[in-house]
């Protein structure tokens, strides 16, 4: 992450900067989780696929964090490597542990479908830089959705064992999906300014796509019960500290190191 991808102009307001960092944190943290599969995926093609998806997300994270950070004079590296746990504002869905392959794929389907709706809306943002980032990223995310959907169909509508494990994964991951659509004061300010969509407004289209895949995969939509949240205000799951330790260790041990 030595040189910024593009010349960075600062966002117009602190709210837009905070918003860009939220979205950047989502992409960064999920990218890191996916990279943990490298050399551990069930087959070599899947190893490459997960690494490629992680790379797309990392690219999106870099432009979003560089943009958001420019408001306060912080670089993408400052934001990724030098913040503490409570300063990260990613959704908890992005950080939950990989679990088995079914958990990773369910998480990917739920997140990618959300990100696709979000970026599609952001393409017409009143903020030109966010619109440009989204117009690029939405095309990448369409491939992520397709990849996760293909796996869900194969696992859900596969053997009895793969079906049961995927249903268990869906039941475990589903509660974290509610936070994707939580509105707060910043989200409302952003929506009022035409910068980004109100998160709650994305749920209907998201649910339509997700239900189509899950139904075809012979999986049952879980009941809406427990709704953990807090990621946007810096509250994270137990595994998050370990993720940061691994992600930030090299940079903190060797400040400014480059290769």
């Amino acid at each position, binding site marked *: 992450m030595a040189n910024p991808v593009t010349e960075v102009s600062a966002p117009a307001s602190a709210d837009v900067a905070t918003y860009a960092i939220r979205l950047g944190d989502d992409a960064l943290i999920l990218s890191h989780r996916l990279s943990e599969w490298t050399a551990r995926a069930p087959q070599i093609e899947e190893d490459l696929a997960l690494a490629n998806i992680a790379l797309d997300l990392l690219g*999106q994270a*870099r432009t979003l964090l560089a943009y958001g950070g420019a408001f306060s004079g912080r670089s993408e590296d400052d934001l990724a490597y030098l913040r503490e746990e409570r300063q990260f504002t990613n959704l908890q869905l992005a950080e939950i542990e990989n679990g088995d392959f079914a958990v990773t794929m369910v998480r990917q389907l739920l997140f990618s479908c959300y990100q696709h709706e979000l970026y599609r809306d952001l393409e017409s943002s009143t903020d030109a830089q966010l619109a440009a980032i989204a117009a690029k990223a939405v095309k990448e995310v369409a*491939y992520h959705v397709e990849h996760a959907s293909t796996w869900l*169909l194969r696992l859900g509508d596969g053997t009895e064992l793969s079906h049961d494990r995927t249903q268990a994964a869906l039941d475990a991951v589903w509660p974290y999906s509610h936070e994707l659509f939580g509105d707060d004061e910043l989200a409302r300010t952003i929506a009022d300014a035409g910068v980004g969509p109100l998160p709650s407004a994305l749920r209907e289209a998201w649910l339509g796509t997700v239900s189509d895949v899950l139904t*075809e995969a012979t999986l049952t939509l879980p009941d809406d019960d427990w709704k953990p949240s807090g990621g946007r205000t810096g509250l994270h799951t137990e595994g998050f500290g370990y993720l940061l330790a691994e992600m930030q260790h090299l940079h903190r041990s060797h400040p400014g190191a480059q290769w």
Partner: protein
Amino acid sequence: MTVTTETELERLVALRLAAAGVPDPEIPVLTIEDLGILRDVRFAADGHPEVVLTPTYSGCPATEAIRSDVLARTAQVDPQARVVVELAPAWTTDWITEDGRTKLREYGIAPPRPTRTGPVPLQLGRRPEPVVQCPRCGSEHTELVSQFGSTPCKSLRRCRDCAEPFDEFKPL
């Protein structure tokens, strides 16, 4: 700043020629001009000439290598020249030139199919496979192995006739 003199125009043409020949580090048969990522060569508001590039994928690691290669070549023509990267409008594989498509095929990579215009369609569930020609034997009897290949821009396919695996440049 607009070009006003013949000398200025010549400076830009020379810079464009220098930049256009830079090869893609991952698919070296293609130049950045073939790829359609050399967007513009122009004078900035402060009078400095600048070469405008656009990245292929958000996370493409080749972007930084290309930027420094372009800078190295343009510096020989005009040390004042800068390289800037612009995201919008988003790059599409439709911008790969005819020449580039021929080079890809000869290199063993199936060129990208045309993208549809408008929003990216989401196709879910089992659906008819697109027709992709094997770059080695020309057969249209090929199948997808993985949507993600050795780089983000390629998917991995297999020919059912000559049995060879090959990369396809994904439509984006």
